[in-house]
Every structure is written in structure tokens, then in C-alpha cells.
């Protein structure tokens, strides 16, 4: 009908439904809840941080995607958004902040400098934060437009929605964290 065509309804995950109940796997339900309520930690260091401020502003509004509550405390954050150049002086700080985050945690590298060192191939700049923390999504750009940042955020949402509950306990994940030198508590 004409009324219904105006709205896009998000599809429910695969499951079995009947009047009064809906059954799906726990993975999918938890993924759906998590992906629409990610709490980001804005680790803004330079120019990309200003584009992030524009993304959080009223025009581009990252809050629509559930990321309204920015958490500056790593203990309470889900998503580490590293925006801007990371110098070698700052690299241990990034790793320390990542270690303090509780599982499940994701990392998005926004901007060319965070992804690979960017324009600055110098003695003092870390050539990409994936030398110190495992990164899930890279957003290129110098600085990336807010639309690109939102696109990267939506890719994170896709990853979050499709993650199995056992991934963080698997041996491959532990080995990957050890390869970065990140201490695991359990």
C-alpha cells in the first residue's frame, strides 16, 4: 500500500515465528542488539578528529546509528575509533587504551594516517596503528568525509551483527592478540 512504501523496515534475522513469539539463534539476537548500540571511544588526535566532530554534529548525526553516548573511558566503550596520526610516542598509549577495553571490542582506523601512516613517512610517525592493535575496519581519506566515516561505521555494524559468540574465546583470537603483545586477562 502507499503508506507502507514510505518506510523501510529492517528485516528481522532468520528465525521461526508464530503469533506471540519469535525464535532465532542467540548469536543473531545479541548481534542485533550490539550493533545498534555501539558506544564509541573517540581517540581523536588530529584533523580527522575535527571531521569526527562534524560527523557527531546535527548535519551527519552518528547518533542515529546508536552511537550517541561517547565513552571516554575505555572500560565502558565497545568501539575504539582511532582518528588521526599516531606518532611513535603515542603508540604505547593506544595499546594501553586497547588493553583496558572489555571484550567484545572492535577497532576502526579512520583516516590515512591511522591506517598506514598517511602522508607522513617519517622517523616519528607510526606507519599504521595495525602495528600495535588489531584493526577491524580501515577508512581511507585525508580527512575522510563524514559520509565515509559513517560508511566505515556501518561496516563495523555488519561485523558486529554477524559475529559468533565464541570468537573471543577461540585459540586463533588469543594467538592474534599475543602476536601484538597485548596481555589477555583470562
Amino acid at each position, binding site marked *: 500500500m502507499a503508506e507502507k512504501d514510505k518506510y523501510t523496515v529492517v528485516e528481522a534475522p532468520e528465525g521461526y515465528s508464530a503469533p506471540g513469539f519469535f525464535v532465532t539463534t542467540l548469536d543473531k539476537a545479541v548481534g542485533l542488539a550490539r550493533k545498534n548500540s555501539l558506544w564509541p571511544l573517540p581517540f581523536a588526535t*588530529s*584533523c580527522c578528529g575535527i*571531521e569526527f566532530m*562534524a560527523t557527531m554534529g*546535527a548535519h551527519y548525526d552518528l547518533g542515529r546509528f546508536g552511537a550517541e553516548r561517547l565513552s571516554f573511558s575505555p572500560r565502558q566503550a565497545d568501539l575504539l575509533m582511532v582518528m588521526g596520526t599516531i*606518532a611513535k610516542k*603515542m603508540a604505547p598509549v593506544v595499546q594501553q587504551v586497547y588493553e583496558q577495553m572489555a571484550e567484545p571490542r572492535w577497532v576502526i582506523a579512520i583516516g590515512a594516517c591511522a591506517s598506514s601512516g598517511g602522508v607522513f613517512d617519517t*622517523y616519528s610517525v607510526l606507519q599504521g596503528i595495525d602495528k600495535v592493535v588489531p584493526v577491524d575496519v580501515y577508512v581511507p581519506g585525508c*580527512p575522510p*568525509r563524514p559520509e565515509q566515516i559513517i560508511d566505515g561505521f556501518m561496516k563495523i555494524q555488519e561485523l558486529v551483527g554477524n559475529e559468533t559468540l565464541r570468537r573471543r574465546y577461540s585459540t586463533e583470537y588469543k594467538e592474534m592478540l599475543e602476536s601484538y603483545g597485548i596481555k589477555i586477562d583470562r
Partner: protein
Amino acid sequence: MGARGLNIERMKTINSEHHLDLTQQDEKVYSTLNLGPTHPATHGIFQNVLTMNGETIVGAEQTIGYIHRAFEKIAERRPYYQITTLTDRLNYCSSPINNIGWHLAVEKLLGVETNKRVDYMRIIVMELARIADHLVCNSVIGVDSGALTGFVYVFQEREAIYEIFEEICGARLTTNLGRVGGFDRDFSPIAIQKIKALLKRLPKILHEFENLLMRNRIFMDRTINVGGISAERALSYSFTGPNLRAAGIDYDVRVQEPYSSYNDFDFIVPVGENGDIYDRFCVRETEMWESMKLITNALNNLPEGKFNTEVPDFFMPPKEDVYSKMESLISQFKMVMGEIDIPQKEIYSAVEAGNGELGFYVVADGGRSPYRLHFRRPGFIYYQAFPEIITGASLSDAILTMSSMNVIAGELDA
């Protein structure tokens, strides 16, 4: 100098040793608080380790360099027209001013005079960037004192300024705007229409923002007589820009050493009294109104002419000519390979950036890159005074002082 209460004699004998001696005090009373390097209040990454006696700050130790990108070393490897991209990233809230400042420095080196149209176009762009910078700084002072609304409303206007920059040069934030000698294209009619629309809308928004904060009892109690610095100490610390003008000295590079035809225009340089946070806020607000007047005057009196000056060694020929004409191909090759005539001299050129006097000290040796390029960054220089300003204040005052001084990490570390 005309500053109220400036004591010239004290200026000449002022001693700078600011040394904190805690040995005779009972050290159990003091606690250490680490503010940074990542902290919601530090807009940028720099660390302050505060020694506190309860809520009062007794001393501060600063560490910067967390975003040191070695601009000066990179500049020794890049041709003159590629250094513009580095200057973008100094004070990234107002990149066009840095870009145009660099182009003015190269023009001074080469001895090039730009025509009036280029000058007026540059004034329009620089004042738009200055408005953008002051909008961020003032709204962030509001955010740090708890007033988040102003920030959200004011950022809409920053989006409008971004759209104008996009029309002019293609990029929003790190603009890499213009060329040595002018611009690469004229202002399109859409750009002029957008500037006029912004000039019509901005007064109302600025009035709304000022009504929110300027006569607000809470804001005034938090900012008047807080974070102040005297004019003598500010001059000793080589302050420039709104921070110095808030302390009472009316030093503005646009008036002292006019560049880009600023002397054709009449504008006020606002000056404060106490150098405290409220004065800095008001000085920046007034500068925004003055910038709007400058843009209106420049736009109404924009003379006819070309949008760039003849600096053949720096303007790449149009691509269709490079692919079809021999002279253009040779000219492009010579430019890229660096076989152009650059005199061997050293210059110092300064512009009034958003934060103060942004200086470029260039030593040219005739090659395609400068032998030495030093950026005189205002943020780096006035941030040294921070421990002296906050000693004796409470932690919340220190947070507000830091944001009112408008310390941008890119400019601090370069």
C-alpha cells in the same frame, strides 16, 4: 603600545624563572593527577601531570610531542608548491589561513606582487577560515563549562563554511587552497551565492549563541578573573593573537604589517583588560563580527581582474596543453624537476592566523626545496605559559583555561 596598565619598566626587567620548590613542604599533602594524553577536555593530545593540594593546583608538568610529524624535515624534501599540504595540517581548524600564509611567504621570496582581485579573494577566504576557527574555540569553551547546546548549533554554520570551501577548492577541512600567486580558478557564482547566504544567516546565529553565554550568570562566574595573565607576562612569553589581545596589547599582524591589501579596509582590533577566559571569549566573538564586516566589504568591492598573477614558474599549464603543446610540456617538466629560478635568500613572513602570528622562516638555496623551513607556531609558544596561569586555580578552572587558549595539537607539535 596603549595597553591599560602596561608597565614598561617591569617589562624590561621581568624574570622568567618559574620554578616550583616542593622540598620544604610536607609532600604527603600533595597528590598527582595525570591529565592526558587522551582526555575529553584536552582537544588534541598533550599531557599535563598536575601536582595538587586537594582541589588546588600547585604545579604542572607538560609533555607534548605525541603527534610530532616532523613537518620541518619533510619540508626540506618537498618542492615549494607541495609544502602547502603540510601547512594545512598545522592549525587544521582554519587551514586556508595557513595555506595563504605560505603562498605569501613564497611570493615574498620570489618578489611577486599580486593584483587586487587576488588580494580581496584571499581576504574573503582567510576571514571565513578565521570565523570557522573562532566558532570551534568559543563553542568548545561552552562545552567544557557544561553548555553543550551552543556547540551543536554553531557547528551547522561550520558546515556552511565547509560547503563554501568545497565550492572554492574541493576539500572541506584540509583545503590545500590556492596557488602561489593567486587561485587556480575564480569564485564560481554558486560560491558567491553561498557566501552571501552565510553572511545573511550568521548574525542571527551569533546573536543566539551570545545570548546563551555572554551574559549568563553561571558562565560569567566561571570565566571572569579565571585563567588570567598580565600583559607583561604575556609579552614575555611571546603570546600573539586573541590571547595577547585579551591581555590588553593590540598587536595584530594585519594592522602592524599589512599583507594582501588589508590596509584597504577599516576594522577594529578588539582588546581585553584582564587576559582572563571571559576576555578571550569576548575578543574572539568580536573578531568574528569584524571578520563578517571584512568579508562583506571585500565581496561588495571585489575588483575585476584575473584570479591569479603571472608566476609562470609555479603555475602548471592546463593539462590539455601539456598533452598537445611542446612548450607546455617542457614547462611542466621543468617545474616538477625543480629547474626554476629561485633566489638564494632568507625571508621571514608572518600572517595573522586564528591563534596568532604564524611565521614562516624560509632559507632558500636555489634548489627546488627550501634549505630550511621553520614554522613559528603561535600555539607552541603560548602554551608554555599554561603552568603559570593555572597555579593556584582549581582543576575545573584549568580545564576551561586550556580550552580557552585554543591549543591545537597539530600546531603544537608540527
